[in-house]
């Protein structure tokens, strides 16, 4: 049972390998943002959406570090706020936000809708049970 599982796992990982760190929107500081995230070794994958001066950083934390999710989210939020003080940064490690961020990229969402979508996702992420 374990062998096919491992094969599936490695296949899934292999596919994802190519685009582990994505930056979408204005690409002016793309490599800088990417480097910033890569410094954090607990981040497995990430998608960053940039629009005007708002920035949505959606990350997925490595499975074994996930129990620290809330803490790591805050840590990354602080790091980005410090680096980009005049930008409206929002960091989330929730799968929903990551999924939606990837959808924005895949659908090549237009700029007019983008800012509304980012606001919507922010509100969603703040909801509590």
């Amino acid at each position, binding site marked *: 049972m374990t062998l096919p599982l491992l094969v599936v796992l490695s296949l899934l990982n292999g596919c994802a390998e190519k685009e582990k760190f994505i930056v979408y929107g204005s690409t002016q500081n793309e490599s800088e943002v990417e480097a910033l995230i890569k410094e954090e070794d607990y981040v497995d994958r990430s998608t960053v959406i940039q629009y005007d001066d708002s920035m949505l950083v959606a990350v997925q934390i490595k499975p074994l570090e996930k129990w620290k999710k809330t803490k790591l989210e805050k840590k990354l939020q602080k790091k980005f706020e410090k680096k980009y003080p005049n930008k409206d940064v929002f960091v989330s490690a*929730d*799968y*929903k*936000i990551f*999924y939606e961020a990837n959808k924005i990229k895949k659908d090549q969402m237009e700029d007019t809708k983008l800012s509304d979508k980012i606001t919507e996702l922010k509100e*969603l*992420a703040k*909801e*509590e*049970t």
Partner: protein
Amino acid sequence: MEKEQYQQLEQNVTPKPPYLKNVAKAFFVGGFICAIGQAVSLFYIIFFNFTEATAGNPTVATVVFFSMILTGLGLYKRIGQFAGAGSAVPVTGFGNAVVSAAIEHRSEGLVLGVGGNLFKLAGSVVLFGVVSAFFVALIKYILVTIGVVSW
């Protein structure tokens, strides 16, 4: 026969449960139910506006719904006989306890039968859940007030 003697005898006569086998069954059935729950969670996250933090509620409600269907068809009891705690510990077991009591007492009427017996089997879980929530909140409030911990 003295009461103690009887208990002694009872203990000697009662066969020891096959610990390892029971544990394995509980692990696999319980784990399987939780994996189904994870699939339900993922469904709500992808197709509805639920985040990982908020998907727990609809997930629990949905697996309780599954449990109602299985209970109504008389299948949950059979799973329970095989899996022991593996099917009792997930909330589906709680759902089963409530639903089966409701169905069983339907003939006595909706108010006295269903209403009166709904929590016959599962009431203690609700009781201890709510009471312990109250005391945990109270204790934490006191600890925060005297400055031992923060919220």
